[in-house]
């Protein structure tokens, strides 16, 4: 993992959609964003880039940089919530 840097990070890309899918959605503008949603077990995890707070600093993290390693990705509703 690259070392965390202080300072602000550049805006993260969010979901990283493969080029082919992007091209398809341009051809079919009517196809709703919602149709591609959700993941399935046994299928690839959608890649993403997100800004992160880690080791006291900020940096952008992509899922694909963890290839070769088991990853547990945990979503939670919000900081300062109670559970």
């Amino acid at each position, binding site marked *: 993992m690259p070392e965390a840097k202080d300072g602000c*990070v550049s805006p*993260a890309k*969010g*979901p990283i959609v493969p080029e082919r899918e992007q091209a398809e959605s341009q051809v079919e503008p009517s196809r709703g*964003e*919602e149709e*591609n*949603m*959700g*993941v*399935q*077990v*046994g*299928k*690839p*995890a*959608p*890649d*993403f880039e*997100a*800004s*992160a*707070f*880690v080791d006291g600093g*900020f940096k952008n*993290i992509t*899922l*694909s940089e*963890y*290839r*070769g*390693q*088991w*990853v*547990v*990705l*945990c*979503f*939670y*509703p*919000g*900081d*300062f*919530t109670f*559970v």
Partner: protein
Amino acid sequence: MTAVAVKYPELQKLGVAVLAMSTDSHFTHKVWQEQELSKMVDGGVPFPLLSDSGGRIGRAYGVYDAEAGVDVRGRFIIDPEGIVQAMEVLTPPVGRNVMELLRQVQAFQHVAATGEATPSGWQPGRPTLSPGPDLVGKVWEVWKTDNAF
């Protein structure tokens, strides 16, 4: 999150990276870590806190609640090839069980290493199953329901 932090050494031993993500900004994550998490866990949580701004990543994973504007509790186990092996999604009021997370990771790693299958409630050291024609109709001989608990 802090429960996962406490068990983080065990996850590290299994070679697992943890990524936690909410729709909060990374700036909010910093303040949460400094003001609260570090008081619950010595040194704060040891894994990255990621920002899913606008819930765009949560949408891709099917865990974004557009009405509330937040990601619900979704936990995904992703293998070294980037394949989703397990997912668990809960509405916000109920927290997850980190011991079950550890159990599932151990089971998936055992399956990946041996090709065996781990029956209900499997824990390391308990009997596994080797699926094949010989096992059809014979599970009752090699596996008892007591093994699940």
